[in-house]
């Protein structure tokens, strides 16, 4: 810091673009994700291991009576776990951590928009979740004899809506979380409710009617349903529309909550 010569003839970069900024933020965030051991375990391994815990319980259900197959249910649960752990739970901790380190505040002093800052942080875990989904789909198709998806467009729609929703809800949950440690607690309600009620561990078809009707309105239920029935091809157009509309309502609510209440810096 000895010679304060400021001007140089060195080449400068051009004006930034939204995509360029998103890429720069995602790249940094991916490096951080890979250096964080507990995040790697939560995001990478938990979603791949948890489906096996459901295997025994599902085998004892009378699935055939509802036109379901064990293989597709396992795959659906795996994709659900990926959304919950790789995307939602990891993002709650990450947003809280970046906020408490004042990273979010510092980024907002720059050119990136709020959506780019939050999106750049979410991008690596979204990519991880997508990779897990593809891996599980290929593995299940090859090993569990479930054939090819009958309505792949619904399946893709379910994965995309689920991922966006989990990212938005992750940011919303971060708003309610003070420290990285407490994010392990604050993310539990959504994890449990989704695992039990959204058709991951127990298909809603096996539930009493009234309970099933309520469970189908839970945030991640439509996405899970689209994934499962997209593979099975058992969804009518009306059912598909209802599911997409329900999912969209949750996405809009989540995005609204983040825009309205998200906290960009620690409490003073």
């Amino acid at each position, binding site marked *: 810091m000895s010679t304060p010569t400021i001007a140089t003839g060195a080449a400068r970069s051009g004006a930034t673009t939204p995509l360029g900024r998103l890429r720069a933020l995602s790249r940094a965030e991916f490096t951080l994700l890979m250096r964080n051991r507990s995040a790697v375990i939560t995001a990478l391994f938990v979603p791949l291991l948890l489906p096996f815990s459901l295997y025994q319980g599902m085998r004892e259900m009378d699935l055939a009576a509802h036109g379901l197959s064990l293989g597709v249910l396992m795959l659906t649960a795996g994709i659900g776990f990926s959304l919950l752990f790789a995307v939602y739970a990891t993002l709650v901790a990450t947003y809280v951590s970046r906020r408490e380190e004042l*990273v979010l505040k510092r980024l907002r002093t720059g050119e990136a928009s709020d959506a780019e800052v939050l999106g750049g942080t979410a991008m690596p875990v979204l990519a991880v979740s997508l990779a897990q989904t593809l891996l599980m789909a290929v593995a299940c198709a090859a090993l569990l004899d479930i054939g090819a998806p009958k309505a792949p467009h619904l399946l893709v729609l379910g994965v995309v809506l689920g991922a966006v929703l989990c990212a938005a809800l992750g940011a919303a949950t971060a708003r309610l979380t003070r420290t990285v440690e407490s994010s392990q607690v604050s993310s539990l309600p959504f994890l449990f409710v989704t695992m039990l009620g959204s058709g991951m561990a127990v298909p809603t078809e096996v539930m009493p009617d009234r309970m099933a009707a309520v469970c189908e309105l839970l945030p991640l239920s439509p996405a899970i349903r689209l994934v499962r029935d997209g593979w099975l091809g058992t969804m009518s157009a009306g059912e598909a529309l209802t599911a997409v509309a329900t999912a969209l309502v949750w996405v809009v609510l989540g995005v609204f909550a983040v825009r309205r209440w998200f906290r960009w810096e620690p409490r003073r």
Partner: protein
Amino acid sequence: MDISKGEQVIEVTDLRRVYKGGYEAVRGISFSVGRGEIFALLGTNGAGKTSTVELLEGMDRPAGGRVRVLGHDPYGERAAVRPRTGVMLQEGGFPSGLTVAETARMWAGCTSGARPEAEVLELVGLRRRADVKVKQLSGGERRRLDLALALLGDPEVLFLDEPTTGLDAEGRRETWELVRALRDQGTTVLLTTHYLEEAEDLADRLAILHEGRIAASGTPAEVTAARPSRISFELPAGHLPADLPPLAPMGVVGHGTEGSLLRLHTCELQRTATELLAWAAAEGLELRRLDVRSASLEEAFLDIAREAGGRQETPGTGQAIDQGTARKTEKAS
């Protein structure tokens, strides 16, 4: 050269900021900063410096009043302002798990017209630390990294919130040189500091904030010129302040005691000092701990704090003398 008649890069009018819960941190301040000027906001902790700078940076919407940076509203017209400003927050803001180089690369990807990262790291003396993680940097090194990134896009306007806090004396001087060099190239700099000598040495103009209001502003010379100079000394044992010749004819505008020390305030330092010393010589007295000093920014600053403190005190709470001094000083100025 009257810099204030040039283009106004920052214009602040009757600015107010109120936090949730009702605390009013900024209570109606106005100032402007011309292109190529270094403007310092000076104040104690809690005076409203950071609250003000954050409004200029566009981090929050003002509760009242108006801010314009380069002719735009920094909060509402973020996209128009951000590519032309550089910001250094009061504290950190970089992921502790990234290295210096990775942090700079991330920031460069979000900065229009970014110069090569190595170049700005060189500028602040961090190039050799490029592969060190942010969490392993010292407090001073983190400040330098922050400064480097604020400079990355060659901003027209630079906001520096306590840029030298945590730096050692040498690091502080180096930062000052850098800021001056930037100013000489036409960069407009708004900085906050609670180091008085930093404001005095570096700023073309400054404002002293106190409890969310501007208590004094102008060039460092103007701010100090409005303040009385000070003579302090100890009378020999057996002599009382009442033994002094009449003070007003000597040009003394206020006085007080501080332990055994007697303090005189004057706007005509040479005349008062001459007459005091002539009196002492004639009486054959030795004035011990004699200290004669012109008004400094420090004096001005302490006066402002004392005046405000005095105003808040209820009479007869054991600080009667200081209060008396403060009142007189206040009247005089």
